[in-house]
């Protein structure tokens, strides 16, 4: 008997199953929108716009997924976006004739603010072992307070080079469509959207193929065990918060490139959307289970609901909120039903759906 040779395909783990469910839901939902609503949903641009509009959210959702897998939480991400956007806008206005170099400095400023928050929160959570919820709640208040301190009034960016950067879009002709007047309008993707997708891929690779990434899963699964297995729990946790801070700073810069204006209410509540995205994507709040690909689709599911409602006769913010809430509720219910049924061995895919016959 040799198990070393050919390996049987393992059945899906719970995490993979949850991710698969969210991908399927996204596909069904989008397909339904294409069939029943038509119009914009039939154009690639609609999909790209979901990415363009939600690039920052995708990035902070990844940040949240990382800390949630490690058994923590970070609710300061939205506040950090608000702060970096405001600080970036003020900085750009102060150097409106600074040329491209000032944009680089703005980028560094944004990332620096994020890193500073990550550093401080990471230290408090991992070394002083304070509850992450409280630490990041304090971080959120701090960031929001600093934002308002920087400027009570909204600040619009007037910086010619930056405006040019905002307008820069990647145009993909063959995915475009022909307008009524016969002109070909290419599909446009913003730099931020590309960044967000790149972040998803990089974080996926990090979580899957680096020792650090696997250590995060280990400490989220069982912290005590992780310690006896020889993992440096403190360092791992510290870096997970540092990275989530860094990503929030980056998300702030991406946000600024999408809407170049600072405002005290920028990205308000977005940490909650990010948590919802992670959960819909199959990340467990209890830690140890999760995947950023799932998170990406979680964000897209939420974004699609919002879009569908915006384009429907029900267009009102309360309907969007209630639909998002209902979606989250239904999804959590589905998750727990699926997982409990699976635990009792009552649920299996019908044989015709199995990937490979055994």
């Amino acid at each position, binding site marked *: 008997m040799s*198990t070393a040779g050919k390996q049987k395909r*393992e059945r899906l*783990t719970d995490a993979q199953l949850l991710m698969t469910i969210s991908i399927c839901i996204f596909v069904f939902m989008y397909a339904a929108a294409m069939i029943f609503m038509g119009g914009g949903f039939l154009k690639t641009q609609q999909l790209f716009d979901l990415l363009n509009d939600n690039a920052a959210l995708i990035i902070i959702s990844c940040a949240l997924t990382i800390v949630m897998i490690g058994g923590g939480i970070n609710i300061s991400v939205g506040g950090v976006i608000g702060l970096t956007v405001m600080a970036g806008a003020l900085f750009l206005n102060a150097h409106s004739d600074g040329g491209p170099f000032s944009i680089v400095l703005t980028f560094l400023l944004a990332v620096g603010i994020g890193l500073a928050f990550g550093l401080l929160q990471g230290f408090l959570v991992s070394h002083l072992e304070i509850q992450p919820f409280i630490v990041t709640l304090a971080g959120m208040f701090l960031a929001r307070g600093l934002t308002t301190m920087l400027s009570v009034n909204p600040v619009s960016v007037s910086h010619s080079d930056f405006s040019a950067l905002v307008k820069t879009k990647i145009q993909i002709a063959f995915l475009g469509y022909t307008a009524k007047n016969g002109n070909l309008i290419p599909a446009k993707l913003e730099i931020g959207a590309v960044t967000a997708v790149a972040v998803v891929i990089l974080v996926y690779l990090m979580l899957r*193929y680096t020792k650090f990434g*696997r250590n995060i*899963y280990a400490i989220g699964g069982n912290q005590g065990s992780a310690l006896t*297995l*020889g993992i440096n729990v403190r360092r791992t946790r510290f870096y997970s918060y540092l990275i989530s801070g860094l990503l929030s700073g980056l998300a702030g810069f991406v946000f600024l490139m999408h809407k170049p204006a600072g405002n005290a209410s920028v990205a308000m509540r977005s940490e909650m959307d990010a948590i919802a995205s992670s959960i819909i994507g199959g990340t467990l709040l209890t830690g*140890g289970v999760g995947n950023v690909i799932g998170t990406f689709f979680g964000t897209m599911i939420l974004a699609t609901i919002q879009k569908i409602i915006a384009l429907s006769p029900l267009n009102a913010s309360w309907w969007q909120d209630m639909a998002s809430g209902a979606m989250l509720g239904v999804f959590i219910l589905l998750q727990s039903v699926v997982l409990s049924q699976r635990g009792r061995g009552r649920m299996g895919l019908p044989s015709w759906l199995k990937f490979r016959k055994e």
Partner: protein
Amino acid sequence: MQNNEVLRMRGICKSFLGVRALNNVDFTLRKGEIHALMGENGAGKSTLIKVLTGVYEKDGGSITVEGKDAHIRSPQDAQKAGISTVYQEITLCPNLTVAENMFIGRTKGALVNWKEREKRTAEILDSLGIPARPRQELSGCSLAVQQMVAIARAVDMQCKVLILDEPTSSLDEKEVEMLFGLMRDLKSRGVGIIFVTHFLEQVYAVSDRITVLRNGELVGEYVAEELPQVELVAKMMGKDLKDLADLEQVGVKNAGEKDMVYEAENLSSTEARPFGFHIRRGEVNGFTGLLGSGRSESVRAVFGADRVTGGTVKMNGKSVRITNPHEAMKAGIGYLPEDRKRDGIIADLSVRENIILALQVMRGFFHPMSRKEMEQFADEYIKALQIKTASQETPVGSLSGGNQQKVILARWLLTHPEYLILDEPTRGIDVGTKLEIQKLVLKLAEDDVSVTFISSEIEEMLRVCSRLIVMRDRKIVGELTGDDLTQATVMKTIAGGEQ
């Protein structure tokens, strides 16, 4: 010094707040030897193990591994010295795959080579005959296999000393056999194994040598074959053997023809198949059977701790409805759960609060007890049961296991139950307290309280119970009374089959 000694501990001392936990203890482990470390609770077994694994720092003495001085100050030091421990509670990550659990935390480089890991894991599992697949999630493996994966990890880390701390507590017989097979295999590879367990038969099944500790001191090191089981027990218990004889005479075994207190017919719950039994006033009966035979599930159904799905129940001849613990309590039933830490004590509450808990629930939320009344009750039972606690206000979690158990007993006695169910009341507590609890049960029976007693130790059941209900595969397969109450008959009934 013989050169096949792999571990040598000499004159180990350790005190906690002035209390001697280990006094000048020696321990020697040879290459390719399974060495059982025996002793009752409080003997110093776990302290010795924790000193060896770097959880505690020793106060004095020396440890040498393969002739070299080992300075062990942390679990990491111990691992580096070649000492690995597999605990009863699995210390692996359930959410990772078997292969990851084998290698996480001990590889060089920043990246993970999945292919290589899985290939290596498959080889190791194969060579040790462990029935697990590398890409399987650990939580999908049985407890026994998880334990074996932990052992495989230790072996692959070139451990010279493998400590198995109560590895068989939650395994069934087949799994125990599997584990023993693995242990013998490792032995032939020259690994020295320290085997800590409570189960006497298991000690004799695999061990070469036995070291006995008592009250933090070394009693002696013996070759297993030359030490009869009775003598081992005597050595572990010391002078307590006489007490055992006393108790034999105390045992009142006349259930008499008193009236029925509790009768159940076709009672079933989500966890227990339909069963029926009855108990008379002042009777002590017992449920016995192997782990997983349904004995605990049955009494949980009696108390309504699991969801009751059918059957009829009579208390004192009158039909009652018991579907949850509260109804059971009102009917006069008390239940001491099997898992003391999880279902019994509330560790952060004081002794007083733990004691009055059940009575408060019986009286209801709107009838609070006065502080004076609570203190009076607590005081009374601390004295009556001789609970060793600094004060009433000490958190229960800081008491020893035996005293925690007494607190839970006090909690139920305070409600003056007619029928008391004790599921494993003596598990994991020291011999002295064990005897006290046994005596208490018999005294309760004299006072006309009916008691159902469950224990894994058949000797104990025979001593205390006047009727034994034997379960196998979640069914009642026999009832033994009178002359049938011997170890041999009980074993035969449990095992089933002919004769």
